[in-house]
């Protein structure tokens, strides 16, 4: 396989791998209220950098799905839209976390031989 196509394949697989994780991270982070920019910073501080053009539309989508609530509020003389996990979002988040932990444990088991090498 050519190096370029291998890199492209890696990028596309990495994107696919990150997509689900990012939703989980955003939902978890929004147990505390944030607006777009501070949420992005908070995620980046935790080592999970995410592009603005991905994060902001994602917040809208999650809100449309009823997992987040939002409200416009003035902060430092500027109107900002603050997001927070909704009641439905909390239920979904806990279900997703159970799923995530299951996958994580399975992967640990599958990869233990790899780590032992």
């Amino acid at each position, binding site marked *: 396989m050519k190096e370029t196509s291998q890199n492209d394949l890696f990028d596309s697989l990495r994107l696919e791998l990150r997509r689900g994780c990012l939703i989980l991270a955003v939902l978890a982070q929004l147990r505390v209220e944030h*607006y777009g920019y501070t949420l992005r910073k908070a995620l980046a501080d935790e080592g999970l950098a995410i*592009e603005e053009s991905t994060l902001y539309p994602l917040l809208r989508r999650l809100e449309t799905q009823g997992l987040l609530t939002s409200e416009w509020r003035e902060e430092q003389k500027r*109107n900002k*839209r603050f997001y927070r996990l909704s009641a439905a979002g909390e239920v979904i988040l806990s279900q997703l976390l159970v799923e995530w932990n299951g996958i994580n444990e399975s992967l640990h088991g599958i990869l233990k031989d790899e780590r032992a090498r």
Partner: protein
Amino acid sequence: MDLLERYLQAVGQHLPAKSKNDTLAELRANLLAQIEAREEELGRSLTEAEVAAILEEHGRPMLVAMRYMPQQYLIGPGLFPIYWITMKKSLPLLVLAYATVQAVALIFQGGKGFDPGAAIGHLPFVLLAFWAWMTLAFAVFEFAHGRYFTEIKVSKRWNPFDMPPLAETGRRQSRARGLADLIVHVLGIGWLLAIPYKPVLLVGPGLGYLRGLPVGLTPEWHIFYWQIIALLALMLPLKAAGLYASAGKWRNGLQIAEQVLGVGILVVLVEARTYFVPTAALTMHSLGSLTALNVLLGLCFKIGLVIRVFKLLWDVWKMMTESSTPRTGCAVV
């Protein structure tokens, strides 16, 4: 902040009117917060180039706007497999229907005014129009279902015992091969139909030389010609049906029927006996050569006929013995 406003205006051009103001207000607040954080970091106001760098990193206005739109498909992943199967299944039927229509037109016009080249040349446009209409119909269905009527869901329940029996290894003809066979057959008939009007299709550049010879096809050629065309046309529905027949007796039966028609073609050719006749006075030697040519051609057709009959009998015998023994198969796991 002129650059920021220009950026927001450019994004806004691609946003739906309903959510435009709300989206732009949020985007403005987030970008301003990012700019202010950077200014705080540097301890000074940002230059226009630095603001431009932030906007560049944020993304092209149109792409940014697109990300706020709901995901849309012409034909979504749920419907696409059904669309694909429908296209695959209906394509051979369309080719068959087109060939039938052309054959009927040929019969009713008695060969006069019928242009085989135009009939074949028109086929791609018919296929293209069919593809466009089918795609449009599925796209309309995709748009409407769930919006204007209840979403149709394919049941997860199915019966594994309904699957066709295991085919013998190496025996089963793939559908692609069957389709290619059908297309080649249609083209072959078209080619044969075109020959009387354009003999160059048969002998190519040698036509000029042959026209100079005092020899031509027997005047009865059109009798066996049309008999052959009729037998080839009868093969079409059998080949098309073969695409849908599952492995086993049904498919074997169709193949046997095709072989019978193939034998019929050779019988017609053998029965013709004389293929070429003199068109001008010939010497005794030339006349003898022409007779020998007719005998040789007749012999070739007879040998072909014997081989085809043996093959037919062999396949019939095999089909009969297969049907009387229980079928077994193996699968690679």
